[in-house]
């Protein structure tokens, strides 16, 4: 409509102008204009308007105008030409079907509803997109420390290689240098490391490196241990030792071989073959036959020199060993247990004789025993034991005397005999066990052996005794303790008194557990099935509340029965005495304790095992002043806690703070110190690490999607024109166009306000 109005206006102007320059124009034109003006005034105007398509009354959504009001556009109108065209039979069919259908289509949803649907769909989409950030957000919240700006580029001066990336070698010298570098595969531009270095860096991470290093260290340490051990063993001059060693090795080898026979027969066969080969070689050669130059010279010396003789014998031995058939080795095995080498080491150990002059040292062992057993109060038992022991000791002393005599006679025999002691050991043991008395053989040597055996035996026995002796007494003690614990449940005042005696042993005086037993047992025996007597238990008389008895149908006997049943049921729960015990405990806790302030070594000798003198201890034991009397002192049935201290209360936390689950958690949190006084520097640094670190003068940019969310589908789509425009703008400004990237390479850092 607006367009047509404008036109009209223009025409009017024309009319006026025509009338103004009447003189200069010809008639024809004037006439035309007049006609036009008239026509524009009249009904022709409407006709003209109908010609304009956009101004029609009914405008279809699809730009198809229906001629005249009320006319509907049919499908046939639109597709009239389709019928005439050939092909597309399928669509024609469909169209025909459509045309024949009489059902009316549903009205499209109204605008509001469609918009609502659109909105909800769009909202769902964007929320989904936004939810991608959740992991990042949670990660940032949980992070121990966040350093802003995030994704910081390494600060500091850049490498020359990075700065002059576009630089090219021009002069011949430079070219020469670069060629050399190229030839040696040296890095030229950005990567400063050579490819080899980079590969090695890639190959080994820090963790791997540390693990590897630790392994190497361990291996080195082990190696050094082995070296040291080998050296030590090598230094041992004893030939016997080496012989034993060698034999052990051989045995080990044979054992392994046997095992191998079972597990890996082919391998074992090979081994066998090898051994066979070595045997053959040995038999073929003249080695170890004492036919060489050296052997001959030794043979000459052998007459006079013992060592030479031994060396020769060794050579022969080697020969013998090597040429021996392997099958015989297994026979050897059966024989070996009888040899002295097979006997375990501890058996070979000679009785440690610390002081040969003082033979009584040995009898100390049983004497030390009473230290443990002295706690046992059973006197008759101990006396019996002592008697036994005395007998034994006498016997022992006898042996000892004889032994010392022997030793003085031939001292050097003892060590050699020690090995052979054991052969007879078992026999003698039987004797000891069987008879209880020891027969002393005639031959002196045997006698001596017996003595030593007896010693070892006795030691065993005595150790058994030390194990067995005090053990039952301890058990007894424990039993007593348990009993006491059982007796803790008290019913009456007398019991309580007893309990008190038991429960607080005086400091300093040693506890005598056997003592209270008879006294405790008396009331136990006395204690009949007495009920709790309130007046006895409590100092104050309890108020009795008189309640009108409800008329009971139940007979008296029944009631009494009931009462007794109830009493039986609650016989175990003694509330009142529990309460009293509680109260007494609290009072105990509140009582001042004696503080021992003695410092050992001040004013007298100090050191290990030296105790400060009694006088000093007495002097420095401080008794604290008694606290003000308890508030519930005169209230027998009340416990008033006196833990709360009003002067401290102002500094104490009254409620459990939020993140903590319980008080102990909170306390442990408070108890761990964070300061440098209590922690190492690194620990302090770690503990006091601030949660958020920002640098002054560094702009913190918001998160950038591309850095965090790698999903391709979420990348902005259809941004072509905007980026293009932006590029144009950048070109116009004469600035580089990479500005829109958000993460610019140039960040102004040092322009802090």
């Amino acid at each position: 409509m607006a367009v047509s109005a404008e036109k009209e206006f223009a025409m009017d102007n024309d009319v006026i102008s025509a009338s103004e320059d009447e003189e200069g124009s010809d008639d024809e034109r004037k006439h035309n204009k007049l006609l036009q003006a008239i026509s524009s005034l009249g009904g022709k105007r409407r006709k003209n308007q109908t010609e304009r398509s956009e101004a029609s009354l009914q405008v279809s959504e699809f730009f198809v105008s229906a001629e005249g009001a009320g006319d509907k556009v049919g499908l046939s109108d639109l597709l009239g030409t389709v019928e005439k065209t050939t092909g597309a039979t399928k669509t024609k069919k469909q169209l025909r079907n459509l045309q024949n259908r009489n059902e009316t289509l549903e009205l499209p949803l109204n605008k509001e509803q469609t918009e609502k649907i659109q909105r909800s769909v769009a909202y769902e989409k964007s929320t989904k997109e936004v939810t991608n950030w959740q992991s990042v957000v949670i990660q940032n919240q949980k992070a121990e420390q966040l350093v802003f700006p995030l994704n910081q580029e390494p600060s500091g001066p850049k490498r020359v290689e990075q700065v002059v990336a576009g630089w090219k070698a021009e002069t011949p010298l430079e070219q020469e240098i670069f060629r050399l570098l190229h030839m040696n595969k040296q890095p030229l531009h950005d990567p400063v490391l050579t490819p080899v270095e980079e590969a090695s860096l890639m190959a080994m991470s820090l963790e791997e490196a540390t693990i590897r290093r630790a392994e190497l260290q361990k291996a080195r340490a082990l190696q050094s241990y082995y070296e040291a051990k080998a050296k030590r063993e090598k230094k041992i001059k004893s030939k016997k030792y080496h012989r034993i060693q060698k034999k052990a090795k051989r045995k080990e080898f044979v054992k392994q071989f046997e095992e191998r026979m079972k597990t890996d027969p082919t391998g074992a066969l090979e081994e066998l073959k090898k051994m066979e080969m070595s045997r053959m070689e040995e038999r073929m050669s003249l080695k170890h036959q004492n036919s060489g130059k050296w052997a001959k010279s030794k043979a000459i010396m052998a007459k006079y020199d013992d060592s030479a003789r031994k060396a020769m014998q060794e050579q022969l031995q080697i020969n013998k060993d090597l040429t021996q058939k392997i099958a015989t080795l297994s026979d050897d095995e059966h024989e070996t247990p009888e040899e002295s080498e097979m006997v375990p080491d501890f058996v070979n150990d000679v009785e440690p004789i610390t002081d040969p002059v003082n033979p009584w040292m040995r009898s100390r062992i049983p004497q030390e025993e009473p230290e443990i057993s002295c706690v046992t109060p059973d006197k008759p038992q101990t006396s019996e034991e002592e008697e036994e022991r005395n007998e034994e000791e006498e016997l022992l002393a006898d042996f000892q005397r004889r032994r010392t005599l022997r030793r003085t006679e031939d001292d050097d025999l003892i060590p050699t005999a020690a090995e052979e002691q054991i052969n007879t050991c078992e026999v003698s043991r039987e004797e000891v066990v069987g008879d209880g008395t020891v027969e002393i053989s005639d031959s002196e040597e045997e006698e001596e052996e017996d003595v030593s055996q007896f010693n070892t035996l006795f030691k065993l026995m005595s150790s058994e005794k030390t194990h067995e002796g005090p053990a039952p007494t301890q058990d007894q003690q424990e039993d007593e303790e348990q009993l006491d614990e059982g007796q803790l449940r008290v019913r009456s005042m007398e019991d309580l008194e007893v309990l008190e005696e038991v429960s607080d042993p005086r400091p300093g005086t040693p506890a005598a557990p056997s003592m209270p037993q008879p006294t405790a047992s008396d009331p136990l025996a006395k204690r009949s099935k007495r009920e709790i007597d309130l007046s006895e238990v409590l100092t104050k008389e309890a108020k009795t509340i008189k309640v009108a008895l409800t008329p009971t149908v139940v007979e008296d006997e029944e009631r009494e029965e009931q009462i007794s049943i109830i009493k039986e049921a609650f016989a175990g729960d003694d509330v009142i005495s529990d309460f009293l015990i509680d109260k007494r405990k609290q009072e105990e806790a509140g009582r001042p304790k004696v503080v021992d302030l003695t410092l050992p070594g001040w004013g007298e000798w100090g050191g290990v095992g030296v105790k400060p003198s009694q006088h000093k201890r007495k002097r420095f034991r401080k008794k604290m002043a008694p606290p003000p009397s308890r508030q519930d002192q005169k209230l027998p049935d009340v416990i008033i806690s006196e833990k709360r201290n009003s002067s401290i209360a102002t500094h104490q936390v009254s409620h459990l703070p939020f993140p903590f689950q319980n008080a102990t958690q909170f306390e442990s949190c408070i108890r761990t110190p964070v300061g440098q006084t209590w922690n190492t520097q690194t620990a302090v640094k770690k503990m006091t690490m601030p949660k958020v670190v920002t640098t002054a003068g560094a702009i913190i940019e918001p998160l950038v999607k591309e850095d965090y969310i790698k999903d391709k589908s979420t990348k902005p789509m259809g941004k072509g024109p905007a980026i293009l425009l932006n590029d144009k703008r950048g070109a116009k400004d004469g600035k580089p166009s990479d500005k829109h990237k958000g993460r610019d390479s140039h960040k102004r850092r040092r322009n802090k306000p």
Partner: protein
Amino acid sequence: MKVKVLCRNPDDYVRETTRDIQRVPRNYDPTLHPFEVPREYTRALNATKLERVFAKPFVASLDGHRDGISCIAKHAKSLSTVLSGACDGEVKVWNLPRRECVRTIQAHEGFVRGICSRFCGTSFFTVGDDKTIKQWNMEPPGCGVQEEPINTILGKAVVTGIDHHQREATFATCGQTVDIYDEQRSSPIRSFSWGVDSFSCVRYNPVETELLASCASDRSVVLYDMRESTPLRKVVMKLRSNTLCWNPMEAYYFTCSNEDYNLYTYDMRHLKCPVTVHMDHVSAVLDVDYSPTGREFVSASFDKTIRIFPKDKGHSREVYHTKRMQHVICVRWSADNKYVLSGSDEMNIRLWKANASEKLGVLSSREKIAANYNKKLIEKFQHHPQVKRIARHRHLPRDVLKQKKQQREMKEAKRRKEQNVRKHSKPGSVPLVPEKEKHVVAVLE
């Protein structure tokens, strides 16, 4: 032969400089250092006291405007530059380290309603009461050359707010509708409206950059997606929201400042009730801005104070005020997380420290360690009544204090009444409504 030699790291016993204190090997045996809790408690108490002693947040005041400050904008790339628009249509560019005005432009007739910097920092946009959107070059013109905008867009209605896209050459304005403009075109490429209302603020999401949110005068906050043709969702509250700000580190959270003295943090995925209600102001909250770390935000209020809230706490951790500061209209947190700027009615822009007791300037490593330790101690003993008392104490202007007291009483009375009603009515008929759910009227799809 292998020779084993004792070797020590000189770092363990050599001090860094001769001015440094001697290194002393320490024995950390706990028996030698008893009473750790009481000693640390005393230290914590001292640290708290010192923190309060050194809490001097006010840094500078920038004066020069001849009318109330209506808007402030940060420069996108330079920390030292700040732009401000006043109620008389004047725009000033400030240099913060020198604390002086660098440039003055008479940009509009009437209020400068909004101002924002382009993401690259080469130009900035202003909108005013004269229905124009103007783009200005950040560089001042040469000597004797008239200040002229690069580009001017004549709008049909008054534009009340503007915000620029984070990475693209588009910006959004709000007035009667929320319009998305392309910088190269004079007409909006997209225009959102939902019912008849006028908008007071529009903000782009800095992380999920295609999202927008706006505050409308029909007490609602509306969400948009730039790529869609319709708005996304609308949440109607009991009173009008003045401004809002998106969290720059957490894409789906935004906080809006409300006329009912509170601020509300919403999760855009669950608009039914706010995540947190931040209460402390005693008058309408006019502006809000997040710290760039996304951990805290600052709010400006009609009650002449600025408050700093942790993003997930209901109450503020800090309140700033001065005698001369009147109604604070706009507030911004600097991009390095160290300062807060506030523009108020009495024509001044004030620069505050974001952390009141923080020492400015370079810290030596020992100072840093001590500061960290003190902070940790205060955090550790924060629940102890004495520490809490000292750390929480702030001086407030008398009328704010009075109003606060009054409001507390009112709230208590309301609570009591509700309780009584509940007590005397059929159980279940008066449900217990949590504070969070009280403020949302409806969520429209």
